[in-house]
């Protein structure tokens, strides 16, 4: 039986999107989200990631590199699962479908003027 794809919140969608095609650790995900203009605090990220993992949308593993600044704490790398990829694909389709009727910005500006 096919597993039910969970609905995603905006933060979950953003976090999953950063993991498409590349596994990343927490701070890397946070920095990538900043670059994409979707800032999320580390605290917010670490409440989202365990939820995604529990839902089977991501898996994680411990990194083995040593980083002085971390004072011995290992990095935890997260990777998107097949179900996660399916969920993000569905979320994207929904967003596109919902936003299609929204006119282009240039047109909106003309109308407003």
């Amino acid at each position, binding site marked *: 039986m096919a597993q039910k794809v969970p609905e995603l919140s905006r933060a979950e969608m953003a976090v999953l999107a950063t993991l498409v095609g590349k596994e990343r*650790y*927490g*701070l890397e995900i*946070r920095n990538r989200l900043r670059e994409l203009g979707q800032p999320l*605090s*580390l*605290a*917010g990220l*670490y*409440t989202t*990631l*365990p*939820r995604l993992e529990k839902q089977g949308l991501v898996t994680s593993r411990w990194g083995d590199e040593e*980083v*002085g*600044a*971390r*004072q011995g*704490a*290992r*990095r*935890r790398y997260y990777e998107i699962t097949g179900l996660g990829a399916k969920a993000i694909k569905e979320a994207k389709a929904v967003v596109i479908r919902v936003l299609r009727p929204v006119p282009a910005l240039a047109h909106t500006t003309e109308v407003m003027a």
Partner: protein
Amino acid sequence: MSGHQWTTADYERLIRLVELTRENLTETSEHLRALGDLRNAEAHSMPHSVLDNCSTMVSVPTATVFDTPLIEPAPGNRLTDFIEEIRGVLRMQGRADVSDAPRVPSVVTQAAPVTRWLDLASPFIPKAVREPFLGDLREDLAAMAAAGRSRTAVRWAAVSQVAILVVRWAWSSLARLVRVA
């Protein structure tokens, strides 16, 4: 000239700053900020840059200030810029023979500022995310300090992130309990 003159005390603070850079990154940021404030005060009270008008400068043993380990200075680093500026003044005044070698104390390669508070707060952080969260937070704080952010900003970032995580975690646990009930 205004009351904000480049004095012996200022140089001593600079020397202390350079020494501290090797020992304690967070305290260095404090000194940097203090020196930056001093420089700004000078700049605003005179028509030209403060550094062009330091008639009461004292001789500083070059070795004391600049004999720090040779490293590659980080571009855009406040400390790098500041020391370059001071070096320019010393050269201009003929008070010290300052080499062009980029002798700047290592800031970027320093370990994270020791946040004892973070260690004390760690038992309150959920075990499931404790290690990766604290590691990432320390890495982030180290990057902030290396970028020249103030000690207060670094502390605030640490406190707020831990507090937000604990509150969020408690809230989601409560919500789960309510759902079960």
